[in-house]
Each structure stands twice: as C-alpha cells, then as structure tokens.
C-alpha cells in the first residue's frame, strides 16, 4: 500500500454531508444503541487533537512528511467529529464545544500528564519510538475504518451509509500513511520490531478506551464486532498487523474482544 504525501495533502478535504438526505432522521430516528455508538465515535474523532498533542512531544514530529500528514489528518478527523455531531444533533443530542471542553477537563490529571509520559518514554527510547507510534496509528485507523463500514452495513440506512463510507474512505487513506511509515521503520530494525510488539501486546486497547468508560467500550465493540461477521473484520485487522515486519502471530484485536467477552 503506497502512500503519496503530496497527493494526500492536495486532495485532503473535509468530509461533507450537505448533499445527503439526513433530515429523514427527524421522522425516522436511529435506534438508541446506534446513537450510543455514534456518540462514542464522535468523541473519539474530536479527541484526535489530544492524540496529536501526545505525538507532538515525541521525535515523530519534525519530519516534513509526517508534519504535513498530521496537519491534514487532524483536520479530517475533526470533521468526522462534526459530521457525526450533525447526525446526533438531528436526534436532539447536542455536542457543543463547551461539552467537549468539560469532557477533556474531566479526564483530569491522567490526561494532562499523558504528554509528559509520552515525552519521557520517547526520550528514553529515541527514534524507534516513531515506529511504535506509526504501527499504533495503523491499528487504530484500521479499527476506525472497519467500525464505520460495520455500522454502515448494520444500520442499512442509505444516507447514513454513504456518510459513513465517506468517512471510512478517509480512514483508509490514514491507514495507508501509518502502515507505510510503520513498515519502512520496522523493516530490518529488530529493536524497533521488538519494541512495537511489546507495546502492542501489552498496552494496546481499542480506540476510545482512554476517554470512555469500560462499559461504553464493551457496548460499542459488541454492537459493531460481535458475532461471526464482526469477528471476520477483526481477524482481517489482525492479519494486516501480522504482515508488518516482526508482528507475525499477533492477534491483539481479537484478544481484546475475547477479554471483553464479546462472542465471535
């Protein structure tokens, strides 16, 4: 999967929904469990700027291509948040800046100290940390892409499906960036491979685990990835990860579902 940064920056647009007939939700609303999942995804998207912050204190910043990507990526993810906020708004669920602020403040010291931990860790580890960041990003983008595709299929709502597929298409480009970077940085670097493997197998949690309660994570993962079809998607992610240098045999995403008791 090749990635061309010039093309990516040139073509980066905010996801749009103005052409979609989403107003039908006013008469024909989505079920509560889907709204709960959308709310979770909306929070994750808006939280991207905080992940960005944690990355900016590491050696990942500073390289031209990475900086260009981060700028576009952060904006695209913000608009994923705005798009989902719009859908929620049509259901009478308002996600305001004040509310987002309250959420970030509520995360408290654990969140505020996150960049400190990242900075210290990356200072100790050095450049190999970038490889870990990239593979971590790849796993999260694979998960996001799969989540949107699953929700589009599960809901079967025509306008929503188009919106979610547009978002998923952008997530797929994010995957291409992170996976390409991860592969380049892991290839032939045993130390980085070991580090990435250790980080993924011990510290990786489904996207959103840091900001939502355990109960919410289990609900969302269960709704999207429970059952045979869902598990198929998850196995595909694990297979992608396993193909990266030094990651053979890792099944972290399946493992995280098993640990939450989500049936295959």
């Amino acid at each position: 999967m090749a990635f061309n940064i010039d093309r990516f920056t040139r073509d980066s647009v905010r996801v749009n929904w103005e052409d979609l007939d989403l107003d039908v939700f006013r008469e024909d609303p989505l079920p509560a469990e889907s709204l709960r999942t959308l709310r979770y995804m909306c929070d994750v998207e808006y939280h991207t700027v905080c992940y960005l912050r944690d990355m900016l204190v590491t050696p990942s910043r500073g390289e031209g291509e990475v900086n260009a990507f981060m700028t576009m990526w952060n904006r695209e993810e913000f608009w994923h948040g705005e798009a989902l906020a719009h859908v929620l708004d049509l259901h009478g669920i308002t996600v305001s800046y004040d509310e987002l602020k309250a959420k970030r403040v509520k995360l408290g010291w654990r969140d505020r100290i996150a960049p400190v931990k990242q900075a210290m860790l990356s200072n100790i580890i050095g450049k190999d940390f970038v490889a870990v960041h990239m593979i971590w990003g790849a796993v999260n983008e694979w998960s996001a892409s799969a989540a949107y595709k699953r929700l589009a299929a599960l809901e079967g709502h025509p306008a929503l499906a188009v919106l979610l597929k547009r978002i998923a298409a952008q997530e797929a480009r994010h995957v291409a960036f992170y996976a390409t970077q991860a592969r380049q940085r892991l290839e032939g670097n045993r130390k980085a491979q070991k580090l990435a493997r250790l980080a993924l197998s011990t510290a990786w949690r489904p996207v959103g685990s840091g900001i939502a309660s355990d109960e919410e994570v289990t609900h969302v993962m269960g709704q999207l990835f429970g059952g045979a079809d869902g598990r198929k998607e998850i196995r595909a992610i694990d297979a992608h990860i396993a193909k990266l240098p030094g990651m053979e045999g890792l099944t972290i995403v399946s493992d995280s579902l098993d640990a939450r008791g989500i049936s295959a």
Partner: protein
Amino acid sequence: MSASSPAFDVRAYVREPVDLRPDQLDLEAMANLPAPVVGAVGHLWSVERTILDLMRDLLVTPTHAEARVTAFLGTWAYEQFWITESLAAVLRPGGEPTDPPDSGVGALRRMWDERVRPTVDAVRTNLLGSDVVAAHMVTGWLNTAVVALAYERLGAIDPRLRPLTAAVAPIKSRHLAFYEDEAHARLSGSAGAIRLARRTVTRWQWPGVRYCGHDAASGPVRTLLADPAARPGVRAVDAGVAALTGQADAAPLRVALGGFVQHSPVGGTVRASTRVQ
C-alpha cells in the same frame, strides 16, 4: 461570562478555510526577486512553518481542553500549511528553502524545547490553570500581527509579490480576529490572566529567532521594517497589544526590534547566551 463571551464564529471559520495553494499564484511573475526580498520571503517561510511547534506548545497546556481553541487551531494549521507551501513555491526557483542553521545557544534551546520543555510546560501550566489560555491568545495575536505586518511591507517593497501578500492578508485578519476576541474574553475580570499575559508580552521575541539567533534574522527584519514607512505599522502592532492586555505601556515589537540593534554582529549575542529558556 455572558458579557465577555467570545463572539468570533468558530464554526463559520472552520467551515470556510482559505487555502492559498501555490497553483493559485503566478509564480513566474514572482521569479528573479532581488536577494534581500528573497531573504525576507525565506525568513517568513521559516517562521510560518513552525505550525506544529506552536500547536505542541499550546496543546500540552490547559489550552488543549478548550474545544473552541482546538477547533480553530486545526483549521488555522491547515491555512498555515498552504501559506507555507506557497512561500516555498516562490522560493523554489532559487533552490529548496531551508531553515537557517541553529546558533550555538539555539541548538541548546531546540534540545530543551523538544526534550524537556513539553514536560516542564505541561506540569507548570497545569498548575497555573486556565489563565494560561489568555496568555496564549495574546501571544497568538502578537505573532500573527507581526507576520501580517511583514507581508504588508513585503507587498510594498516589491509589488510583484502583491498577489501573494494580498491573498494572505484576509487569512491573517481572521486569525487576528479570533485571538483578539478570545484574549478579550479571557482577560476581562481575571487579574491572574492579565498578570500572566503581561509577563508573556514582556518576554516576547521576534518570531523565528529562538533557534537561529538574532543575527540570522536581522537582515530580513531590516529589509522589512527599517524603512520609516514601516513605523506606523510597528506602532499599530504595539498599540494593539496594549489594548489587549489592558496596559498602555506595552510595546513588545519596539522592544524586540531593539534586540536586533543589541544583537548586531559587532555586539554579538551576549544577552541571548545567558539564558537557555
């Protein structure tokens, strides 16, 4: 905070970004610029491209929780990215633009900024609390106002650059409006915020000298601002800051420009070398 709540419409701003892409400019018409002008454009490129440095410095502090501010910053970074690309495209006929080399002290500062400061700032500013946000907004205004003035001057110095500088001006105006609005709202009624903002303004330096030192920037700064025609603009920036922070005696740009006199090659960089941060 009803009386002082910000009025700038962030949602409208993020919806309509202005991306000044290189292909919107007649680059051929901007070729063969005189060396001092190229130097000034190069300096601006180097200043404008510190997008993610600025984001890092803001996001490790309590400012990261301000969803209004982070929403603004995401679009601001996008606009800044395309300004930087356009400046690079103007410079490219003379070779790929590069940052000036770090001075001796600058290299130490960079190491400090990249390895230590995020940690120190995260802890320090989180103890200070939300007053820090106001100081950030004042700094944002000041940096933007100075760069906007530089573009204005650039257009006056070499009319061939006017299509570029005229396109940048409205982008900067919106940034200024945001910062001004946020600064007003956050400074009003907070003695702590005013105190912090005042300290930040006092310590402010010309953007882009932190690593390369005053010597490397003095040529471009002279090109841009030495002409008496630049004086009203300089005064306007200082007056704008004074109005923001509620203190009539603030003149950070005048003070910072004085730094270039002190740091002339003959005088060396004595003062700068005594402090790392």
